């Protein structure tokens, strides 16, 4: 049998199969359970059955049977490949993989994807970070000159690392860049086999929570928004636009569900993903890294264009026509159906530095749950008292005085001065504050002692 005959036979078989199952609409979604910022279009929608809830059941869909499948991936690359082969209709991924997706599809003659919605963002880029082994004597990014730094190349964290090094004036020749996956990087940080590792959400916090790593640089310092979103194959979108609208409604509802009770949400997400709830809380709680908002803002498109520039320079990325690729039509229809003002949400941007300024610090008591404190002084006193009773504390959370970023108490630097205690992510910031206010820099254990002394 010639190749042509074989293909013809396969094609006819496929066509017959298609006709026979005309009433069944297959919806296949690729998501990432090890990437927190994708959860509202991935694991939460899947586990709560939110897509099923919003799928159309009238008009041309009256007799439709839906066949929904979810596939979990460790990165966006394979999702794009599976979408190319039409094994997936929807893909959920971070900013850099999204661009690769759009550009790779536009490189073909006959296939396209559309970027139809976001999942969430951090305005300044928090979520990506550079971590060093917990006992390292490195505290600032300029100390990385001459050191070995690893990162998953092609990820958002890689883009952040390049930008951060450029901003610090450290040329590529002055440090050894190693390509390491999140799991390998985390393992190497734990055993101090690498000087520093840059990674995306939630790996940095995972290392901090497990006590193996310490952040020295947060993506916020690059000032470039970090965002995730949803892409759909255009042929699917043309055939079933109402399904895409239903998907966006599900994404929105997933966000509302998390906001309504973050503690319950992260506990459930821990069961679904294996990522510790205390780590997830730093993303999904009030004041967390992630602002849940599916709208596509002009600022996001500008950020994606800048990311595409980096990819073009570093990876020979094909061009991407953003006008053709990005569409808000389905978002607007979904919001209209839900009775929500799309433009109002689109025009609202949360800056953690401002939004978190007055938020209380928190202790996660293993039995009593989250307990809030108006000041760090009260927080330290409470920790001391809990310890005296032998109570188990899952985690503690404070806010960086310099940026408003939510931190684990155990990784923060505290400054005790006449104004009481303040918390900092970076030691240099703590040192500067201490010098200005005649304070003393210390870590959590010393701060607890310092409170009582």
């Amino acid at each position, binding site marked *: 049998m010639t190749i042509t005959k074989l293909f013809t036979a396969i094609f006819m078989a496929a066509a017959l199969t298609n006709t026979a199952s005309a009433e069944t609409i297959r919806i296949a979604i690729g998501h990432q359970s090890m990437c927190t910022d994708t959860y509202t279009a991935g694991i939460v929608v899947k586990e709560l059955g939110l897509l099923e809830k919003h799928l159309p059941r009238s008009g041309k869909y009256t007799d439709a049977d839906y066949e929904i499948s979810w596939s979990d991936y460790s990165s966006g690359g394979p999702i794009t490949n599976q979408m190319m082969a039409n094994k997936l209709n929807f893909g959920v991924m971070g900013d850099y993989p999204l661009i690769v997706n759009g550009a790779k599809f536009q490189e073909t003659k006959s296939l396209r994807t559309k970027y139809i919605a976001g999942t969430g963002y951090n305005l300044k880029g928090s979520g990506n970070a550079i971590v060093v082994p917990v006992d390292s004597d490195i505290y600032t990014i300029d100390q990385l000159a001459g050191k070995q730094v690893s990162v998953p190349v*092609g990820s958002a964290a890689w883009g952040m690392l390049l930008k951060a090094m450029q901003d610090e004036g450290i040329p590529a020749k002055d440090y050894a860049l190693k390509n390491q996956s999140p799991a390998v990087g985390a393992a190497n940080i734990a055993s101090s086999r690498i000087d520093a590792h840059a990674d995306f959400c939630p790996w940095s916090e995972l290392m901090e929570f497990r006590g193996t790593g310490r952040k020295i640089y947060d993506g916020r310092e690059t000032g470039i928004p970090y965002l995730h979103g949803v892409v759909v194959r255009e042929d699917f979108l043309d055939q079933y636009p109402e399904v895409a609208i239903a998907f966006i409604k599900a994404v929105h509802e997933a966000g509302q569900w998390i906001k309504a009770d973050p503690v319950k949400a992260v506990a459930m997400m821990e069961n679904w993903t294996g990522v510790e709830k205390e780590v997830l809380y730093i993303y999904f709680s009030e004041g967390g890294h992630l602002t849940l908002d599916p709208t596509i803002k002009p600022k996001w498109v500008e950020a994606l264009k800048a990311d595409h520039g980096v990819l073009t320079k570093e990876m020979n990325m094909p061009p991407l026509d953003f006008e053709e690729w990005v569409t808000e039509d389905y978002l607007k229809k979904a919001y209209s159906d839900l009775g929500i003002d799309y433009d109002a949400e689109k025009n609202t941007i949360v800056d953690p530095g401002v939004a978190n300024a007055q938020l209380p610090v928190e202790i996660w008591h293993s039995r009593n749950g989250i307990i809030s404190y108006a000041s760090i002084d009260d927080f330290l006193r409470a920790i001391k008292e809990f310890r005296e009773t032998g109570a188990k504390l899952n985690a503690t959370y404070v806010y960086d005085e310099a940026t408003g970023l939510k931190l684990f108490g155990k990784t923060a630097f505290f400054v005790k001065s006449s104004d009481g205690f303040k918390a900092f992510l970076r030691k240099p910031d703590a040192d500067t504050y201490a010098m200005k206010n005649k304070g003393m820099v210390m870590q959590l254990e010393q701060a607890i002692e310092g409170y009582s002394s």
Partner: protein
Amino acid sequence: MEKNHALAGDYMRRFRISLRLARRNKALCLGAGAGLTLLYYIVLLSAPMIKFQQWPNYVTTYDWLENVGRIIASTPSWSDRLVIINDEWLFEIGYMNYDFGIGISQWSLFVAPIKVLEIMIFGALLGVLFLIVRSIGEASCSKRNLWAAKATGGVGAGLVALTSISLSWVVCCATPSWVVGLAMMGLGVSTSLWLEPIGWWLHMAGLGLLLSALYVAAGYLPDIDKT
């Protein structure tokens, strides 16, 4: 015009001789195709196992026929279909790290039937080249020509083997790519990724070199029918 006819005639003569040689040694050619393919994939699988000192701990199979049917039905352009089908997998074997979350695939070998077929054809062509070179030796041709044919075929085979690598390594590419081979051999990952788009051209160059070696070598053979 006469020159063109002569060239075409010469080309056909060389092709005919090579084909007859292959037919007379079917078992060797088929054996070379199958054997080299098997050897190639054993080497591919061994490379990450040796480099990372890890045994594979997962295997996944894919419904290749159904997937190809779906690609054909949903991709309007034939050129797009062929490119996508070319990368369609039948089988995946690799190492999964379960230290975090539900696990992350550290490295894996993907077996795509179209690529396997390609490697088999390539192996068979190498077998034909071997037969021709052996026959040239028997025909007492100059050693220099013999060496040139071997070297050209060898470089061609090397390029095709390199650009047919279907390994994924999460620190380099989340999807299988030939540049994973370069990265594993020590080339910088950024440089490897930058080279990725020229893979097709290198592949074609390799094929061209092997066919050229066959063409040139066949020219030194006496017509088998007359021998």
